[in-house]
């Protein structure tokens, strides 16, 4: 059962109990809020009002909140926007990062040092909020979805992590293919990438989560609220409790006069924001422990 080394004394009963208690509390502090939010989003109006707020004990369940949200309107649209930006953005980011990580993984190649330096220097300073905004606006990207993708499309950190991983692949593996006349693109696709599934999954997760969670870029660059991604909607209707616009609550009142969305609907929006992360995470998480990140951090 236990894998304690032979020299270690067995933990005292009180110590083991205390440790178990602390660990349980820590795990609960992460899971309990999520449990309550999910439960509330699935509860009927009566159950929510009986609880006087978040529901902790399951009562009558219903999917009414989700049906209302996905009947079309602000939330449905924002989910589609977020999904689109996440999928397109991750594809671009991951593709560009993989290519560059491989392109820069051969020390001694032409321009290797200056290009690497260019990448690493971005760790030391960012251009700042205002200059960024000026650039995006002068490129005509304001109010386009590209403004949510291009400015942060390449993260030097992810590039360096990936490159470190590629560099650890021994030359012997790729040399024979090179002697047979395979192009670098072919080597990358046929030999290097299949060996790097873990690190690709992790970096892909980093990018995807970044896009899905991206909030401030949208506040900054999108004036048209019809284009809002989910995180901005979440802030507007849940954090700030503003009323959903016509068609969301069933009653067609003017925006601002309608009552704020019910708690179940608010929590359903939270769950929708949470769900993709909860879904994808377990598949990628096992790679964390395989030393992908650690290896990367240590270089």
């Amino acid at each position, binding site marked *: 059962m236990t*894998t304690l080394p032979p020299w270690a004394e067995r933990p005292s009963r009180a110590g083991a109990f205390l*440790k178990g208690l*602390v660990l349980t509390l820590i*795990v609960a502090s*992460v899971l309990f*809020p999520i449990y309550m939010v999910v439960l509330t989003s699935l509860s009927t109006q009566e159950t929510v009002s009986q609880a*006087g*707020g*978040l529901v902790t004990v399951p009562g009558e369940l219903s999917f009414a909140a989700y049906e209302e949200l996905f009947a079309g309107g602000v939330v449905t649209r924002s989910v589609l926007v977020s999904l689109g930006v996440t999928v397109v953005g991750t594809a671009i980011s991951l*593709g560009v990062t993989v*290519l*560059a990580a491989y*392109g*820069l993984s051969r*020390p001694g*190649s*032409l321009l290797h040092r200056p290009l*690497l330096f*260019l990448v690493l220097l971005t760790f*030391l*300073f*960012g*251009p*700042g*909020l*205002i*200059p*960024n905004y*000026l*650039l995006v*606006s002068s490129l005509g990207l304001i109010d386009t979805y590209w403004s949510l993708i*291009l*400015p*942060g*499309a390449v*993260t*030097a950190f992810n590039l*360096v992590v990936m490159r*470190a991983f590629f*560099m650890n692949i021994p030359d012997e593996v790729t040399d024979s293919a090179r002697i047979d006349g395979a192009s*670098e693109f072919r080597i*990358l696709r046929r030999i290097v990438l299949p060996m790097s599934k873990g690190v690709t999954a992790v970096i892909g997760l*980093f990018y995807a*989560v*970044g896009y*899905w*969670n991206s*909030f*401030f870029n949208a506040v900054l660059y999108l004036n048209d609220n019809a284009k809002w991604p989910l995180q901005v909607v979440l*802030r507007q209707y849940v*954090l700030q409790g503003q009323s959903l616009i016509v068609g969301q609550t069933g009653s067609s009142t003017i925006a601002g006069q309608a009552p704020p969305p019910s708690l179940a609907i608010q929590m359903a929006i*939270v769950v929708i924001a949470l769900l993709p*992360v909860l879904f994808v*995470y377990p598949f990628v998480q096992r790679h*964390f422990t395989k030393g992908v*990140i650690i290896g*990367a*951090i*240590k*270089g």
Partner: protein
Amino acid sequence: MLRDHVKTGPAGDLTSPAGTGISQDVANGARRTSRSGRRPFGARLRRDWQLLLMALPAIGLLVVFHYVPLLGNVIAFQDYSPYVGIADSPWVGLDNFHWLLFDESFWDATLNTLTITAFQLVFYFPVPILLAILLDSVVRPRLRLFIQGIVYMPHFFSWVLVVTLFQQMFGGAGLLSQTLRDHGYQGVDLMTNPDTFLMLVTAETIWKDAGWGTIIFLAALAAINQNLYEAAAVDGASRWRRLWHITLPGLRPVVILLLILRLGEALNVGFEQFFLQRDAVGRDAAEVLDTFVYWRTLLTGEWSYGAAAGLVKGLVGLILILIANKVAHRFGEQGIYKRS
């Protein structure tokens, strides 16, 4: 490392440990370069053009969205108006910086930023270390993996989500207030209280990132030679003495490095977290340098003034990170770039 937290692009925002890899790479690069010898440019181009082509898109994006915008900082020396453009806006020299010097709200924001950094150094920084030691002591591998999986998770939630969850727990209509009222007490709203704001943001940071922060310490713990523990145990050292004399010294290099790097980032406390809560709590407690720049520029239209504040913050930040690295080298650590 000194990535501006204002830039909230989809940064793979693994925190500080990021850098440690780089210096090694640069060193490797330098060492292996000599291998290629001095081949003529044409021959190297013929050999490496594919690699260059592969690096091009990423380099292009970094140049356009990272280096070109740096030029935009010139508006800090202008009286910039978006309708006139950079080319035709009048130059005002150091006027903007001069005003900044006497602007109380700028200094308030600076003070808030530094207070938050100091508070988090004391109350956030040790948490991942303690948590890592605790996790490391869980001997059953499957249980350990399960707990790790759970505590890493909040790192992947957005700040909007985290603040929303905290509001549902500790806000005026949240679970805490609700429970208090059910038992006949007054409800409390910790989300709008400036007096407890420091504790609130620290609690949020702990909830979101302390688990993820254990990764680097767990790696350091795994690297400690297990024979040391055995020898100490055989010599009769108790569990606590082994923790004190083996575990903690084993963690020391990582702790010192991260501490120094965090000090180098003293002006960066994270933007979104404060942006989201500034209105509810009020400027006095929640205005940090990054939010100051945002509100001063994009909301009141003082572009040049905001840019000046941003530039000052960027430059001071750069100096801090360079000092931090010097100190890290002094301690015999790698820092984020190689001593040349």
